[in-house]
C-alpha cells in the first residue's frame, strides 16, 4: 500500500536532510510529473538548429508526456502533445523529420497544422452520404495540449503552464549570462547518444549539481594530475535554488597542494601520466579562465563545457527507478577542422564512456539499490552548511540543497 503524495510528510525544514522515499515512491513520482514537469517550469526540448525550416520537427518528452516540437510557418516554434485527439495514437513517429505544413496521424488520418490544431478529419462528412461525424462535432474543441515555447542561446524550452515566467526571468541574470557565455553563437551537432540509467531522475540531477563528488568519484583528473578540488572555482546557485553553474578555474598554482595525500584519498598518486597528453590541448574560447563549467536548468537540462568538449544533456524520467539521459555533443558552426578534431578528442572526457562521467552512469544506481530498504531514513547533504547560496568553493553541496529548495517549493513540501 502506498500513501498519497499529500499524506507524505517532509521530515523537517532543513535543506540538509532528504528522505530516501523520494527516489522510489510511485505516487510521489506521479505528482512530480504533474507538479514539476507539467507545471510552471521550462523543460528543455530541442535545439533551434534542429528546426531550421518550416515543418522541421523533433519528437521528445516533457516528463513522460510525448511532445512534438516544430518550426511554424512564420518562423516561430510550436510544441504540442504528441497524441492524436481521436484515439490517442502518437501523431509523429520519428525522432526528427520534416513534415511540410501538416502532421497526419497514421491510424485514421486525422491531421494537424504546425500549431497542433486539429484541421482535418478523414470522412468527416461520411462516405456516400452515410456515416461521418455528427454535425455538433467541432474540430477546434479537439486537439492535443499545446505548450508555450521559449528560446535562449539556441535552446528551445517548452512549458504547459501559463504561470511559468519569461525564460530570462526564470533563469535569473547570473545563470542566464553563464549559459550565454557558452552558447553565444550558432551550434552544430556532432553526435547524439542515449544513456539509460537505472535510477530515479533526481539522483542524476543531484549528481550534476554536486560539486563535492567530482574529483573524489572521478579520479581520472587526479590520477593523471590534471585538476583537483583544491583548484579555483565555485558554485553559483540561482536565488530560488533551481538552477546552478559550477566552474573550475585554471590558476596553475595548486599543483603542489598535498590536500589529497594528507587525507589519504585514493585520487592522489604520482605514478600516472597520459601517454598522449594532447587530449587536453585546450583553446580558451570564451574569453576567460574557466576550464570547466557545468550548468543546470531546472528540471531537466545540463549544459556542459569541459575544456572544449561541449554538450547538452536532457534528463527524461522513465518511472521512479529509471531515466534516460539524452546527450547532444556540440561544436560551433564556424569551428575550424582543428577545433572540430579537438572537440571530438576531448569528448572522451564525457558521455556514457567519459573519463570523468562514466561513473555518473552507475553511481545513481548504487544509491537506488543501496536505499531499497531505507525509505524513511534521511540522506545527509551538509557539506558547506545548510544553505543554498552561491559559494566560492566546490567542497560544498550548496547546489544540491538548492535543488531541494526548488523541488519542495514546486511539490508543496
Amino acid at each position, binding site marked *: 500500500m502506498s500513501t498519497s503524495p499529500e499524506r507524505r510528510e517532509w521530515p523537517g525544514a532543513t535543506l540538509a536532510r532528504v528522505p530516501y522515499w523520494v527516489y522510489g515512491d510511485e505516487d510521489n513520482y506521479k505528482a512530480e510529473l504533474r507538479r514539476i514537469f507539467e507545471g510552471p517550469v521550462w523543460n528543455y526540448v530541442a535545439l533551434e538548429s534542429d528546426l531550421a525550416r518550416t515543418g522541421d520537427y523533433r519528437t521528445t518528452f516533457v516528463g513522460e508526456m510525448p511532445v512534438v516540437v516544430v518550426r511554424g510557418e512564420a518562423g516561430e516554434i510550436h510544441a504540442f502533445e504528441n497524441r492524436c485527439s481521436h484515439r490517442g495514437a502518437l501523431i509523429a513517429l520519428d525522432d526528427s523529420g520534416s513534415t511540410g505544413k501538416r502532421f497526419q496521424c497514421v491510424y485514421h488520418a486525422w491531421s494537424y497544422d504546425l500549431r497542433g490544431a486539429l484541421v482535418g478529419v478523414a470522412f468527416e462528412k461520411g462516405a456516400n452520404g452515410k456515416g461521418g461525424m455528427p454535425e455538433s462535432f467541432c474540430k477546434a474543441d479537439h486537439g492535443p495540449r499545446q505548450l508555450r515555447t521559449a528560446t535562449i542561446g539556441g535552446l528551445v524550452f517548452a512549458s504547459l503552464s501559463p504561470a511559468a515566467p519569461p525564460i530570462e526571468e526564470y533563469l535569473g541574470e547570473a545563470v542566464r549570462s553563464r549559459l550565454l557565455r557558452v552558447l553565444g553563437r550558432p551550434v552544430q551537432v556532432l*553526435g*547524439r547518444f542515449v544513456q539509460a540509467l537505472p535510477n530515479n531522475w533526481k539522483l542524476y540531477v543531484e549528481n550534476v549539481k554536486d560539486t563535492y563528488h567530482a574529483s573524489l568519484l572521478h*579520479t581520472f583528473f587526479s590520477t*593523471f594530475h590534471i585538476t583537483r578540488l583544491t583548484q579555483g572555482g565555485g558554485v553559483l546557485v540561482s536565488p530560488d535554488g533551481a538552477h546552478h553553474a559550477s566552474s573550475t578555474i585554471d590558476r596553475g598554482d595548486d599543483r603542489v597542494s598535498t590536500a589529497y595525500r594528507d587525507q589519504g584519498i585514493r585520487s592522489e*598518486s604520482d605514478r600516472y601520466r597520459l601517454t598522449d597528453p*594532447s*587530449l587536453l590541448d585546450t583553446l580558451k574560447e570564451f574569453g576567460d579562465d574557466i576550464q570547466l563549467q557545468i550548468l543546470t536548468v531546472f528540471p531537466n537540462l545540463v549544459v556542459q563545457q569541459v575544456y572544449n568538449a561541449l554538450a547538452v544533456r536532457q534528463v527524461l524520467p522513465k518511472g521512479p527507478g529509471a531515466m534516460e539521459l539524452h546527450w547532444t555533443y556540440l561544436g560551433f558552426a564556424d569551428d575550424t577542422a582543428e577545433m572540430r578534431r579537438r572537440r571530438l578528442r576531448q569528448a572522451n572526457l564525457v558521455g556514457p*564512456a567519459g573519463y570523468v562521467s*562514466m*561513473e555518473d552512469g552507475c553511481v545513481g544506481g548504487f544509491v537506488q539499490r543501496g536505499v531499497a530498504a531505507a525509505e524513511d531514513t534521511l540522506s545527509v547533504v551538509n557539506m558547506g552548511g545548510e544553505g543554498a547560496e552561491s559559494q566560492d568553493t566546490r567542497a560544498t553541496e550548496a547546489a544540491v540543497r538548492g535543488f531541494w529548495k526548488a523541488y519542495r517549493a514546486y511539490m508543496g513540501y
Partner: protein
Amino acid sequence: MLDRVSRLNAEYARAIDDDRLEDWPGFFTDPCLYSITSADNHRQGMPAGVIYADSTGMLKDRVAALREANVYERQSYRHVVGLPAIVGERDGAVRAETPFLVVRIMRDGTMALFATGRYLDTLVEEAGALRFRERVVVCDSSRIDTLLAIPL
C-alpha cells in the same frame, strides 16, 4: 585475405574478452582511428563517438584509465564476431565490414545483450602483421545501458 581478417578479429575479441586490454592498442597502427558511434550518427555523417581515439597513445590511456582511475562494477564481455565482408582493397589497404554481438556479464551474473553492430575497418600490413588503421564501431542502437567502460 578473408581468412587473415577473420583471424585478426578472433584475436582482437579474445584480447578484450580475456581482459588482456593491455594488448588492445597493439592491434592498431599509429596514428589510427578507433571510434564507437551509432548507426544514426554514422548515417547522418555526425563524427562524435562515445570513445574517439586517433593515436595508440590515446588507446593506452583509455586502458590505463580503466585500470587505475575509472569506477564501474566488475563486468566482462563476450564478443561473437561474424564473417567479415571484404568491401574494398586499394594501395595496400583493405576495407572490411564485420558484424558483431556483445553480451555484457555483470558481477551479479546478469547477462544482457549490450551491443550489436558492425566494425567498419581499414586494415594495413605493418611489420608482417595486419593492423587496424581504422576501426569505426557502428552500434545499431544509440542507446547505451548505464555506461560503456570496456571497449567494443
